[in-house]
């Protein structure tokens, strides 16, 4: 602050110069000065001396004030410039001030000089500070905008009075608006919220206004280009001096990638859990189903070592051994088949028509249907097509239909109904029959288990529903069952589109 003020003086008259310096000193201004008399010297001084203020005579023998002023405008436009002259004239003086000359001092009124210099310096300093503050503000806004852009986090303000939202540039970008469209109406904003999320977002804003509590939520938006994004939004209420809420200040964070990663992770966890269950079941099969014939073979070979054995017993054991070995072979084949289903899918997905599929199956089991007077009805008016693996869907339909036939109630004409529904982005299939049903209270958990059988009098391997479930899950679907003894069975299958 104590640096000396640098004054550049354009003056050729030594007397005038002395008077001028006397006035400056007298006023107590702490300064250094450089005196120039021509264009060259003036130009050099502007560049090198870098004056805080310029005091210039109007006319000099080899130079003139207006030229000096023009040069100052080019090189140091912010430096205050004061004419110090014998005569300027009313009109000239008005022109000068209009063109940006800071002030003028008549030589016969030099006593005003110091005051005018001080004022000019003060104004210049204020102006510089203001410019600096403005520059810093712009810088800081730019920094903020860049940070928002990097973080994919925009900010917004909502004014309750005007119902106008003020978006940051990044908020505009997130919503797919042009970055200069920072003011948007509440109505326009609401058209950008995903229609399915609109009610709950509105409800949240309302609650926040009523309860005076800050709010946060995740919701979807539909950008102006039609792309759906996931947004995490957090808002705080703003109040006026009387404590009345005036609006909301908030941030909007584009979390689409996070959301997708989360969905992916959840899916992976579910897949792993499913795999784990499969492994447990596999261990169970090895322990029970696979080992059962092995134990029989072991037992039979033990017994066969007894020399007292009658030929009839020996024949029974021989038959039993053949049966056990065949069973063992069948289980190995089953396991191989199951593992193939769970393995990679090489088949391409195609559009499959439910009604055509059911008609095909009806033809292939025509004998059964005719013989036992079975009625198969279907209603696929809601949705009759799905993009899927045809062999799997065929197997699912075939197994469920043949189960319904196999486990029909004796003496009751079997009726099998299949219908489809479209709910949101899901296709739901219902297979309903009036058969024997299953006691789900007792057997619920085991219904879809491998080698689980519930009707001892009807031949079966206990693989049908297990295969259906495996295939439904391989296609990314879910399966559920409702049933009761002699009350029929309803199988519900959901596929995401």
């Amino acid at each position, binding site marked *: 602050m104590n640096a000396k003020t640098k004054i550049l003086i354009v003056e050729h008259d030594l007397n005038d110069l002395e008077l001028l310096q006397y006035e400056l000193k007298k006023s107590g201004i702490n300064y250094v000065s450089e005196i120039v008399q021509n264009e060259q010297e003036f130009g050099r001084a502007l560049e090198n001396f870098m004056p805080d203020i310029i005091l210039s005579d109007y006319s000099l023998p080899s130079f003139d004030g207006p030229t000096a002023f023009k040069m100052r405008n080019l090189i140091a436009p912010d430096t205050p410039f004061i004419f110090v002259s014998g005569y300027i004239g009313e009109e000239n003086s008005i022109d000068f001030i209009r063109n940006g000359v800071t002030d003028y001092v008549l030589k016969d009124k030099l006593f005003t000089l110091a005051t005018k210099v001080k004022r000019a310096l003060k104004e210049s300093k204020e102006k510089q500070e203001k410019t600096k503050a403005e520059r810093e503000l712009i810088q800081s806004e730019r920094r903020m905008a860049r940070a928002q852009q990097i973080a994919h986090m925009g900010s917004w303000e909502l004014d309750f009075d005007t119902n106008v939202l003020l978006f940051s540039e990044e908020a505009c970008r997130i919503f797919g608006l042009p970055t200069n469209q920072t003011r948007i109406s509440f109505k326009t904003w609401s058209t950008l919220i995903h229609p399915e999320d609109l009610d709950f977002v509105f409800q949240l804003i309302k609650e926040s206004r009523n309860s005076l509590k800050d709010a946060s939520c995740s919701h979807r938006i539909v950008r102006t280009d039609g792309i759906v994004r996931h947004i995490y939004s957090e808002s705080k209420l703003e109040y006026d001096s009387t404590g009345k809420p005036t609006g909301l200040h908030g941030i909007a964070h584009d979390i689409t990638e996070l959301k997708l990663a989360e969905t992916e992770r959840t899916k992976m966890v579910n897949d792993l859990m499913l795999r784990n269950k499969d492994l447990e079941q596999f*261990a*169970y099969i090895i*322990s*029970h*189903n696979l*080992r*059962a014939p*092995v*134990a*029989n073979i*072991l*037992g*039979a070979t*033990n*017994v066969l070592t*007894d020399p*007292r054995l009658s030929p009839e*017993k020996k024949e*029974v*054991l021989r038959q*039993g051994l053949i*049966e*056990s070995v065949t069973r063992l072979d069948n289980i190995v084949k089953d396991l191989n088949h199951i593992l193939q289903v769970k393995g990679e899918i090489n088949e391409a997905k195609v559009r499959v028509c439910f009604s055509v599929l059911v008609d095909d199956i009806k033809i292939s089991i025509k004998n059964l249907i005719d013989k036992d007077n079975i009625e198969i009805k279907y209603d696929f008016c809601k949705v009759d097509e799905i993009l899927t693996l045809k062999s799997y869907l065929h197997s699912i339909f075939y197994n469920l239909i043949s189960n319904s036939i196999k486990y029909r109630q004796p003496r009751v004409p079997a009726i099998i109904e299949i219908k489809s529904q479209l709910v949101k982005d899901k296709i739901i299939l219902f297979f309903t029959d009036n058969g024997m049903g299953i006691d789900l209270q*007792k057997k619920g958990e085991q219904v879809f288990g491998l*080698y*689980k*059988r*519930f*009707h*001892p009098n009807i031949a079966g391997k*206990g693989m049908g529903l297990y295969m259906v479930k495996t295939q439904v899950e391989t296609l990314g679907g879910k399966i559920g069952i409702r049933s009761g003894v002699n009350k029929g069975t309803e199988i519900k299958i959901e596929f995401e589109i």
Partner: protein
Amino acid sequence: MSIIRKYIIVDDDPFNNILCNIELKSTLGEVDIKTFQVPEKGLAFIQDEYIKSSEPTILFLDLNMPTLTGWEFMEEFERFSEEIKEQISIYILSSSVDQRDKDKAQSNKYIKGFISKPLEQEAISSIAGI
């Protein structure tokens, strides 16, 4: 202690039941063996017979059966009166080699032991009290 002469086998696997019959008879001579492929029928038999008689009996119970598992059989069995339960010593006879099955069997106070199939003479001897 005299040798136990009454046996019940509950297992859906007919060949296993034949093998058990042969092994029991060749180890113990003439014994009374009742075989049930359907566990529900086995339960009904026990309820009917053991109300009247009282003779120690050994029951070999399979675990993996379609309509009623060995564990479900046990749940039903536990509802019987103490007089009935006292007469019957239950042994799990399963093809399972799974430790969890063995642990589960051990924690049930009505189950005397766990035998992994096949049923061999040595096991029969020790159970029957020879």
